């Protein structure tokens, strides 16, 4: 086991880099963070669009949400891989393909979290904001979203953890992220699949566990501030 780690740790961490493209755990991390960074604003926009009073905005987004939610991520990756190049005429890199698929897929799930967060506030807050003469957008920006985002924190973290795990599907289109690299190592060593995949599993676990612990910590801090700024519906 130690010999295995000693031989392959660098390959596991960065793939063939610097003699080839970046891969391994570094690529997984890059993909997950970029995916989250781009999916979050997309989710916010889609979620808000789902609640828009303008049908021209609401209907197409609602359709997109239903289609993507009713589709496995693997299908979305295949679409991005095979269909997108025929549409744009340009060949997208494996990393780019996977990133697009992740951003669309997670953006849609985040949109539903955002929507639920806003709807969960109840009619009273919207009505109070609108009855003061604030526009729909002003009500969202100053009254609804600041409250909804705090309620949404636990669900958002769940989605972030999922994203990290979803990057492993990049394997299927030959993206040299950490699962792909682990499989390569397994092929080369051949005799130690248990150890190889144990290491891979541990790696994912530590990443996801670390992120959720971090999220708990953030949540506790928000809650501590919340003792001075309690949430809606808290008993007076």
């Amino acid at each position, binding site marked *: 086991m130690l010999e295995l780690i000693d031989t392959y740790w660098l390959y596991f961490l960065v793939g063939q880099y610097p003699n080839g493209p970046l891969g391994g755990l570094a690529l997984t991390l890059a993909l997950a963070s970029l995916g989250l960074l781009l999916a979050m604003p997309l989710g916010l926009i889609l979620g808000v669009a789902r609640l828009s009073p303008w049908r021209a905005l609401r209907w197409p987004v609602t359709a997109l949400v239903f289609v993507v939610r009713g589709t496995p991520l693997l299908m979305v990756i295949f679409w991005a891989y095979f269909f997108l190049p025929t549409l744009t005429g340009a060949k997208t890199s494996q990393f780019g393909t996977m990133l697009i698929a992740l951003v669309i897929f997670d953006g849609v799930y985040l949109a539903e979290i955002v929507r639920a967060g806003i709807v969960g506030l109840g009619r*009273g*807050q919207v*009505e*109070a*904001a*609108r*009855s*003061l*003469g*604030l*526009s729909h957008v*002003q009500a969202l920006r*100053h*009254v609804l979203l*600041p*409250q909804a985002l*705090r309620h949404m924190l636990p669900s958002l973290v769940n989605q972030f953890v999922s994203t990290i795990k979803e990057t492993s599907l990049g394997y299927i289109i030959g993206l040299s992220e950490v699962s792909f690299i682990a499989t390569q190592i397994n092929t080369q060593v051949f005799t130690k699949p248990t150890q190889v995949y144990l290491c891979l599993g541990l790696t994912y676990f530590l990443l996801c566990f670390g992120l959720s612990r971090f999220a708990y910590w953030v949540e506790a801090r928000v809650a501590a501030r919340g003792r*001075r*700024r*309690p*949430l*809606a*519906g*808290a*008993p*007076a």
Partner: protein
Amino acid sequence: MIRFEHVNKWYGAYQALVDVNETIAKGEVVVLCGPSGSGKSTLIRTLNRLEPIEGGRIEIDGKDIHAPGTDVNALRSRIGFVFQQFNLFPHMTALQNCTLAPVRLGRLSPAQADEQGRALLERVGLAHKADAYPAELSGGQQQRVAIARALAQKPPLMLFDEPTSALDPEMVGEVLTVIRGLASDGMTMICVTHEMGFAREVADRVLFMDAGKVLERATPADFFLRPQHPRAQQFLADIRSPFGNG
């Protein structure tokens, strides 16, 4: 100032407002009462277009407010609305609740809004709670902040939707005192309430509604002493002795 002409409204098959015709003059204080589900709240919510109407017209200062192309936000910013459940913004202090709209609508600079907000909180007796968050306030205090928030737009018209119904009994008085103060300043107001003592003392006129219709309009003295419509007589009997006469 306000004019309802043949106003009809449905929720699906249920008719919530039935051919309402009414005129309310500037400076008038009108109390709307009637059993629950009679359309009182619906009626005042049509005035700031929280509810659409399906027939008739509603005019404020001669303008049809449900006409297509009406600037809803401008309309609403001229009408103060106070909710039964207060609906303060929980992530903002009492003062911030009062300054949000004037600043965002570009009416006042942040400094002016701050000054005005503090003056309004003073007026409702809560100057010392300016920096408190809603959850740190009692129900009565929250409702007084909500009134200050509505007043921050200097509205010519105030609407109150059962402002004391969600309050513990000992807090009803403090809120009614504030509303009474506004009435004596000559503000036009419509108040949905079951506080009959308050109605008798403050209202210029009482409207009694049942099943979406305005069945009786009278001065408070006439309404409480000599109700004409049988439904109004029954309603008054019910609220006076809720357990019946046996």
